[in-house]
């Protein structure tokens, strides 16, 4: 057989990642529309058991090798290249996360195949795959088609609901051999856990989250005062962490925490896809931004077009007033 839709099953620290189920749900739609099989590709070392949760696929191809113990881009790309060359799928859907970033690009480069990056959706049109790629920090989407098979599609988190790709039925597993060097050039050494001691922002019911719009470290105080008045904590987006204004433990988004508080206030955060990924599950989202077109307003329930530096103190005062201070 050839022409299947493949999904690379991302796993990390012994668990299948949520994005894998999202991408499986998307892959199943594509396979159905094309009348082909959906297969999941699981790469690892002693990880065959993880295949049991991938029943959204009709079959799991499992490759076991010591070089695949961690999902390093080079080893995964070489293993996938082996498999693609022998089995000739129509498309390989690769999740785009911190675990898997680079695998799709390397694979495409090795195969001389086309890669489409940052896909938020893929569909079948006239029998051909058509993708929507998110560009320019989430401000534009390009609808594109790629020439030739296979096409490598990097899939952004959130393309489908996680539950749509979960099933309790264990799929058949085919063990496949891959030729990999026993001593890969890129060698995994160790994991470094984040420093303990700070609060866990995932446990907070209220988060006052700040972004570039906060302008300077001195203005963090405005967010801190509001967080205290609301009984919550301050978190931030990438630029604030990179500036050293908040510790990494407070980062929301792709490299940080995936938070689901009861109330998330996004102050001066534009809403880049990497950030939205980590907070879109909050029960109530209010966003403050001077740019009315900021993508954060696409995910927020309520929006305020204003300078966060004006609204934060006003909101703190009102909250204190209501609480009778």
């Amino acid at each position, binding site marked *: 057989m050839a022409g299947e839709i493949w999904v690379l099953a991302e796993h990390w620290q012994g668990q299948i990642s949520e994005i894998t189920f999202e991408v499986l749900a998307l892959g199943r739609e594509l396979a159905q529309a094309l009348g082909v099989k959906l297969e999941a590709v699981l790469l690892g070392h002693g990880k065959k058991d993880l295949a049991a949760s991938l029943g959204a696929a009709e079959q799991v191809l499992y490759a076991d090798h010591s070089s695949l113990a961690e999902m*390093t*881009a*080079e080893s995964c790309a070489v293993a996938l290249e082996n498999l693609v060359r022998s089995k000739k799928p129509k498309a390989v859907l690769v999740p785009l996360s*911190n*675990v898997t*970033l*680079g695998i799709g*690009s*390397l694979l*495409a*480069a*090795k195969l001389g195949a*086309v890669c*489409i*990056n*940052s896909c938020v959706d893929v569909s079948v049109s006239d029998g051909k795959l*058509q993708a929507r790629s998110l*560009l*320019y*920090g989430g*401000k*534009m*989407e*390009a609808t*594109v*088609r*790629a*020439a030739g098979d296979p096409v490598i599609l990097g899939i952004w988190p959130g393309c489908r609901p996680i539950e749509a790709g979960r099933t309790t039925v264990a799929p058949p597993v085919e063990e496949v051999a891959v030729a990999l060097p026993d001593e890969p*050039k*890129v060698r*995994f*050494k160790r*994991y*470094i*856990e*984040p420093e303990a001691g700070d609060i866990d922002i995932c446990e907070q019911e209220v988060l006052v989250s700040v972004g570039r719009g906060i302008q300077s470290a001195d203005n963090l105080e405005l967010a801190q005062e509001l967080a205290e008045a*609301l009984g919550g904590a301050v978190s931030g987006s990438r630029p604030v962490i990179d*500036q*050293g204004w908040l510790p*990494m433990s407070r980062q929301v988004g*792709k*490299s*940080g925490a995936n938070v689901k508080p*009861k*109330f998330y206030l996004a102050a001066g955060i*534009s809403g880049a896809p990497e950030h939205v990924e980590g907070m879109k599950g909050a*029960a*109530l989202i209010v*966003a403050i931004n001077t740019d009315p077109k900021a*993508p954060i*307003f*696409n*995910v927020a329930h*309520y*929006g*305020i077009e*204003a300078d966060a530096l004006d609204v934060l103190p006003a*909101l703190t005062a009102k*909250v204190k007033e*209501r609480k009778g201070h």
Partner: protein
Amino acid sequence: MNILVLLKMVPDVVEELEVAPDGKSLDTEFLRLIPNEPDDHALEEALLLKERLGGKVTVLAPDAAEVDEALFTALAKGADRALKLSGADASSNTAGLALAIRQAIAATPDLQGVDLILTGTQANDDLDTLLAPVLAQLMGVPFVGIVTSVVPDAGRRMVTVQKECPKGVRAEFEMPMPAVLGIQAAEKPPRYVPVAKVRAAMKSLKIEAVEAGEPLPALPIEVIAMDKPVVSERAEMLEGSPEEVAGKVCEILTARGLL
């Protein structure tokens, strides 16, 4: 250490972006280009390594509007050499750009012994692919992306890097040099350089021209349309003075039992 930094100009997404009349590309009339932010971190990491270990930093950027200023800024910050690459349309053809850079490296004697190539882990206009892994593949050298720490061991010709994983965890990898690294964040925020110093660099230093050797293949991706994301639900906007909107937010919080 002989370090090459790859820098690319990308649309400033803080500005309003519009679709061009062809419906398939960005309207460039009012487009403001800025250096890709992760590339700026790559430059900072390179400069930190040079300060620590000695050596030289070369910055290479494909030609684009405002690129001269970005290159002079890099020189003012402490880069030793600035190269402007012509013949590569960098926007949204990252695979083609990687090929052009590969050719430029091969044609520049000084860069053939490069130890590390640092660039941003991604750019906001990467429609087709990511630069660092593709370039690494073309050069046959190792790649790691989302890097936040780079520690070379010149004696052993090895480099140890840390990359970000989910949940604040970092993973440490070791690989031989040369290597291509996709930088997410430098160990320190990118340094600030006063405008006067950039102007001084413009007067006393120069940007060298390099060319992509061969014509580059067209992007094998057909763009059918470009548009602003259609959202099913947009935020309900709260209007008024800061005090008024603060009052409205309090009402919402009270209604939900959060206040």
